[in-house]
């Protein structure tokens, strides 16, 4: 026989666990507010005999949504994290591109690696500029991020496809993957007014 959950304990535990992500200062009040809301909703559902699976799932969805609420407390930290990640990817791409530019381009005097690595250097500079744009909240930041993400995807996919194949699949994952993640994450953050 299936055991039916008749207390909001699990939801309250989730709220408590998520509250650990909140900064110390507002944590207690945040937790108190969420616990009171969850408890009151549970009592209401019980009173109206509406403790259905659908309503329980809806409550769980709301409780899990509190993660986004907590992340909003961490605006500055989240922004700094994104900037640091941008610079790290920029350095990885830039270092690889510079190596290719010197060895294959200048050393072996091949035109294709010179063009590709030059484009990669531009993308890595754009990554750093996007990071600064996020940090300094430039008005043109949104456009810059879209441009950087799109360029990174196009460049890395192009570099991996035949007949060029000068880039490895790891570079494709880092460059194109991060470009895509960047576009998605910034769109999501922008929706919640976290970045700009």
């Amino acid at each position, binding site marked *: 026989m299936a055991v039916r959950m008749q207390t909001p304990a699990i939801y309250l535990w989730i709220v408590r666990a998520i509250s650990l992500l909140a900064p110390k200062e507002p944590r207690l009040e945040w937790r108190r507010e969420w616990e009171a809301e969850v408890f*009151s909703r549970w009592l209401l559902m019980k009173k109206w005999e509406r403790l259905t699976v659908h309503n329980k799932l809806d409550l769980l969805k709301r409780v899990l949504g509190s993660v986004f609420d907590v992340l*909003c407390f961490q605006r500055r930290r989240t922004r700094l994290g994104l900037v640091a990640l941008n610079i790290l990817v920029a350095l990885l791409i830039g270092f690889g591109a510079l190596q290719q530019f010197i060895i294959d381009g200048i050393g072996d005097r091949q035109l294709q690696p010179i063009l590709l690595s030059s484009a990669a250097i531009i993308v890595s500079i754009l990554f750093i500029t996007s990071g600064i744009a996020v940090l300094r909240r430039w008005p043109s930041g949104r456009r810059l991020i879209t441009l950087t993400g799109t360029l990174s995807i196009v460049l890395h996919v192009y570099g991996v496809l035949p007949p060029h194949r000068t880039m490895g699949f790891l570079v494709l994952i880092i460059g194109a993957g991060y470009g895509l993640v960047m576009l998605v994450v910034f*769109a999501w953050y922008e929706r919640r007014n976290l970045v700009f």
Partner: protein
Amino acid sequence: MLYPRAMAKTGTRKINLSFAGAAILQALAHDYRYGFDIMDVTGLPSGTVYPALRRLEQAGLVRSKWEDQDTARKDQRPARKYYELTSGGREILSEAVNRYRVLERTIKKVTKSVKPLRS
């Protein structure tokens, strides 16, 4: 731009009110004062409602209070935090409603002039 935004001024400050923000202020104006009730009436997720409430509070459009302990005890539940509109919030809301009304009228006009693909 993901949401149409209503620009309004309170004193010297400019407030960029998103559609979600306007919907929350509207819910508060209709006496839905708790976070979960606002979610029910606006259909917005918790990850949007609570951060928006906090931003609106910081902008001085909304204020929050803890309800009376005795009332909560009588209902055998913990005290809840409720939100209410400030006078600035009411002002901004009426401006936003007017703007969205104009937007709604414009959209209706545009959609009327567009012929449907299939009859």
